[in-house]
Structures are given as C-alpha cells and as structure tokens.
C-alpha cells in the first residue's frame, strides 16, 4: 500500500524568480500546488515611520526608493498628494513634462516586467533586449534629472529644473525607434507558441475577485474591467491626450503580459502627442519654497502607476512634517492575490504567476 503524503516546498527569500525578497511556502501534491502561504516584510524599512520625522521635502527622496522601478511615478504621486494637501498650483509646462516623464517611466517599468517574464520561462534574450531599450530611457532621465534610477526631480509646484536643450528631440527619436522593438518583443516572446502554451489559461483571475481584493493596474484590466485612473479620474494632462485603456477578458498570465506590451505602445502615443505640443513657460508656478506647511487636514491622492492605483494618504497637523503618511501600494494589494492564483497550478507556473503580478518589494514592504 502506497501512502500519499503532501510535500512542502519553500521558495525564497533567496530564489531566482521571486522578484526580490519574497517567500512563499508551497504545499505540493506531486507538482500541483494545493496550498500556498506567502510571507513578505523582508524589505520593510519603515518608510512611513521615517517620514514622520522628515519635512515634506525630505520625504521626497524616500519615495524614490519605494517602487524603484517606477521612481518617477512615486515622486509624482507623493508630490501631487502634498500639492493637494497644501493647495499648491502647478504650471502647465511642468504638468506636461511630468506626464511625459511618468509615461517614460511606465515604459521602463513594463520593460522590466516583460523581460523578467521571459526569464521565468527560460528566455534570457528577451530580458536583455528589454534592458537594452530601457537604457535609452535611463539616458533620457539622466540628461533631465541627473539620476539613473532615483530622480527626485519633481518639486512642490513644479520641477527641479527645466528640460535640457535638445531633450525633446532625443525623446522624439526614442519614440520613433522604440515601436519596432515592441514588435520584436511580441514576436520573440509574447506570440511565441511555447510561451503561449505556458501562460494561456494559467493563473486565471475573475473580475469579481479582482475587484473584491482591490487589485488594480494591468492585473485588474486583464479581467475585463476598464479601470484606469488616467481615464477615470484624470490628473495632469491625461484628459488632453488621446489614448486607449487596454483591457482583455481572460485574466490569465498571457493577458497581463500582453496588456503591459500594449500599454507601452499607448504610452509612446501619449509621449508623442505631448512632445508635439509642449507648453512654453516656467516650470515652477511660484517661487520654490523650501518648507511646505499645510493646514491641519488630511488628503488622499492616487495616480495610476504601472502596477495600479498608487495613493498617498497624508495627515497634516500644521507643522513642518507630515503627521502620518500612508502609502496605498498597488503591488502590495496585487500580491495578496497570489495565494488564490497559485492554487491548483503546477509548481513551474508559480514564478510566472508571481511575475505577472509584477511586485516590487520596496513598495510591497515599504
């Protein structure tokens, strides 16, 4: 008589495809996952506590290091939350530049996501191709902000400085050269028969569960919900440009990868439009002041980061420092789905599913 026994396997925190420091304990029956216990907090730095002891401006560099793949978007969400809290006006040119940079960073972030998706199925080349194009975006960022990964470029009421000369042309060149590369990724990975075989019908998420969990971004849009804060709660210049919200119906890993791919095309479209009608003028609406002292109130502001709804909930007590800062992290919420998604799948699909949720642990653990 053969006795059947379940089998526990521990993935992470050091594991090649957990996208950072994430641990998931899988309960296996053969190669099928029957239970999963995720554990996070390996990168918990206590940003929310640290920010209570910093002035509003000093918190800004900390937000870079939350979602380090999308530092521009995090700066943006924080800066706009403070502007909303303190009622600061932003000049039009600064808004347009902010939109361009946020979209460029969305492309950079999606490139990493698609590249690592390739890595998880053993296609190393796609990963390197994605990084090749990402370097060009980083060059653009470096010219404008001086940093490759952490920028701290936005200031309350505008920007740290205007774009350097010739930047707009370079960005235009990038947009032109980038689109053929997107087709290349599509041919090489997304439409590859083996990749389709591996990802179609894997990690299926249904619409109601996704909403119930509060998932957002490509994870939510893959289930057929057209929910994008850029369209549904427009901020910056998003109501003045044309773009489509990409969504699909199946909610599987392939759909999420395809949405990211298509969003890169849409972002390029947005950037092109804005580069063509960049408003003239100052990038700082008023004199840049070092200290922001908001009234005693609270406010919440959310932007659509590449991972979804990234919100900052700020409470002010009328002093120099925020009384409380809560970061509503999309990666944290999306990752909470992992337990539901991996159940019933094969162990080889677990990295793919984690990767399709695109967690960044600086933001998950904060």
């Amino acid at each position, binding site marked *: 008589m053969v006795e059947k026994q379940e*089998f*526990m*396997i*521990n993935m992470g925190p050091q*594991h*090649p*495809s957990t996208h950072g420091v994430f641990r998931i304990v899988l309960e296996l029956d053969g*190669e099928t996952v029957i239970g999963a216990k995720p554990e996070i907090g390996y990168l918990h730095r206590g940003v929310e506590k640290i920010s209570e002891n910093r002035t509003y401006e000093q918190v800004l560099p900390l937000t870079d290091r939350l979602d380090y793949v999308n530092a521009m978007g995090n700066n943006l969400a924080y800066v706009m939350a403070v502007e909303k809290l303190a009622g600061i006006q932003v000049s039009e040119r600064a808004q347009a530049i902010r939109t361009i940079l946020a979209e460029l960073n969305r492309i950079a972030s999606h490139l990493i996501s698609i590249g690592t998706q*390739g*890595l*998880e*199925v*053993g*296609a*190393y*080349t796609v990963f*390197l*191709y994605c990084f*090749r194009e990402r370097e060009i975006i980083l060059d653009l960022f470096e010219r404008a902000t001086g940093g490759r990964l952490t920028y701290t470029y936005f200031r309350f009421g505008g920007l740290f400085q205007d774009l350097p000369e010739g930047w707009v042309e370079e960005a235009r060149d990038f947009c032109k050269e980038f689109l053929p590369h997107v087709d290349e990724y599509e041919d*090489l*990975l997304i439409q*590859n028969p*083996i*990749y389709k*075989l*591996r990802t179609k019908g894997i990690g299926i998420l249904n619409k109601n569960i996704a909403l119930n969990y509060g998932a957002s971004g490509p994870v939510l849009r893959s289930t057929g919900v057209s929910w994008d804060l850029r369209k549904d709660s427009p901020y910056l210049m998003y109501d003045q440009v044309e773009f489509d919200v990409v969504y699909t119906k199946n909610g599987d890993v392939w759909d999420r990868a395809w949405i990211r791919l298509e969003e890169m095309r849409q972002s390029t479209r947005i950037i092109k439009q804005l580069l063509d009608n960049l408003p003239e003028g100052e990038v700082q609406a008023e004199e840049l002041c070092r200290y922001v002292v908001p009234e005693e109130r609270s406010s919440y502001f959310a932007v659509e980061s590449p991972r979804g709804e990234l919100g900052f909930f700020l409470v002010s007590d009328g002093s120099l420092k925020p009384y409380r800062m809560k970061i509503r992290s999309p990666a944290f919420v999306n990752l909470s789905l992992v337990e539901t998604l991996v159940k019933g799948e*094969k*162990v*080889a*699909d*677990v*990295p793919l599913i984690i990767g399709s949720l695109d967690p960044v642990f600086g933001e998950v653990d904060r």
Partner: protein
Amino acid sequence: MSLALEVTLRAIIAVVLGFSFVGLALVVLNVVERKLGGRFQSRYGPLHVGWHGSLQTIADLLKILQKELIIPAGADPVLFRLAPYLSLVPAITIFLAVPISENIVALESNLSLLIVLFLPAVSVFGILTAGWASNSKYSLIASLRSAGQMFAYEIPRTLSALSVVMLAGSLSLTEIVKNQQSIWFLVVQPIAFLIFFFTSLAEANRVPFDLTWAESELVSGFFTEYTGMRWAMFFLAEYGALIGSCFLTVLLFMGGWLGPFLPPVVWLLIKVSVLVLLSLWFRWTWPRFRIDQWLNFSWKFLVPLSIINLLVTGTLMIGLRVGV
C-alpha cells in the same frame, strides 16, 4: 595479442581520447556558447580573459578546481559522491562505439547503434541519485521530472532511429553511414530526423527541455547542492551528452563522415558543429516547456508520429520491393 587484451586496450584508449575530446570540446564550446550568446543578445560576452575571452573556460575550470567540496548535512554521503560519476561515465563511454571514419572506431560491433542509443539513458540514474542523495526538495523534484521524461524522449527517439535501421538493414553505425553514399537519410526520413534531433535535445537537457534544472522554479535542479568539481562533472556530462547526440544524429541522418575533398574526420566535425550551434541558437531563443506539456506532447504526438513514420517506411519498402 590476445583478443581480450586488444579490446581492453582499445577501450582504454577510446575512453581517454573520448574524455579529452569532451573536455576539449567543453572548453571550446563553452566559450563559443558564451560569445555567441553575447552576440545574440547584443553584447560582447567574455572579452578580457585571454584573446577575446578565449581562455574564459580555463579560468572557470581552474577556479572550480579550488572550490570547497561540500556535502550538505542530511545528504547521503556515498550516493552524493557517486552520482556525478554515474552521470559522467555513460556520457563519455558512448564514444567507444562512435566511428569517426570508415576504419577508425574503438569498438567495432554490429550492434553499435544500440550501445550509443542506450548508454546515455544510464545518465538518468546519475541524476536520480543526485536528486535523492542531496536531501533537497528542489533536487528531488528535478530528479523525479528527469525520470518521468526519460521514457517520453527515449521511445520516439528509438522509434525514429529504427526507421533508419530498416532502411540501412543494419545496426552497425559504420554500415548505416555507408548506406548513405547516394543520399542522406535526412532527405528520405525528414520526420524521423526532426523527432530524433529534438528528443536528443531533451536527452541532453537543453532548452526547450531543460526541465531538470529549470532555474526559474527549481533553483538549479538536481545539482542545486553540488559544489566545485562534482558540479563541474554534471556540467561536463551534459555537454558530453549534447555532443554525443549530435554525433549520432550526423551518423544516422547526415551521412556521417561522407563528403568530397576534405578528410572524413573534418566533415564529421563540421556537421556536428552545425548541429551543436543550432542547439545553442535554440537555447538563446526559446522559452522552456512545462513538464506535463512536454510529456503530453511526447506521448500524444511524437510517439504516434514516429510509429506512423515507421509503418509508412516499412510499407513503402515492402511495396517497392514487390513492385521491383
């Protein structure tokens, strides 16, 4: 000289030569693989060690020689030590029966195809042993996968080789090559060639069938716990299996050493290199299968296809003979 002595001497020479050949091939192949991979990925690959990185593998080997040999607590020490040899020895020994040209072969036998086909299967025991002895769950899953997929590739592989045997009417590799004087079996048996080549990739654990060391889920698969030279032996065994499979494919389907002008050995090496480079190209381009998909593909598609191919070959042969 007595027969037994001669056979023993030949075997020793062949194993030594085979080992040096695989070792040398590893040194060359590894650098080529990395340089080529670099080019595929728009980067340089090894560049600063030796002339354009040509000494890279030698540096790697020197380093691996110095690494500490660790036997993890909880591992079975005897089996843990044994497993690399179990994996390496069969992968090298097949060169005993591989003819390099019409007259150069260590072990002339009229059953040489059987030796070359089935000796590498013993390597699987090395993988199984490694997975079991490591006392690591990743290794265990990898070795179970390896055992599961062994039949999935061995059966279509053997069946497709059989159709060549039917055409040649012999199990001797030398005879099979001689039968391709007028036309390569690749032309007559394209389906068998494709099945044979792809299942060879599976046997050598190459992309897209590198399921036993799928680093995205199983860390390093069955050799997760191995360090230093023990690990390098697995590495060597895998390269040996790849080169061996390519040799066999060339002998069975691509006319072996036959070719004009150049010496036969050179022709053989050229053909083998083409196949090896092809497999490297696959490695840098394709994603990996999932184990159950690969098994399904094999049992539901490759096995029936190779059986049908065999039947059609047989029917046609009988038909032609009757017709003539």
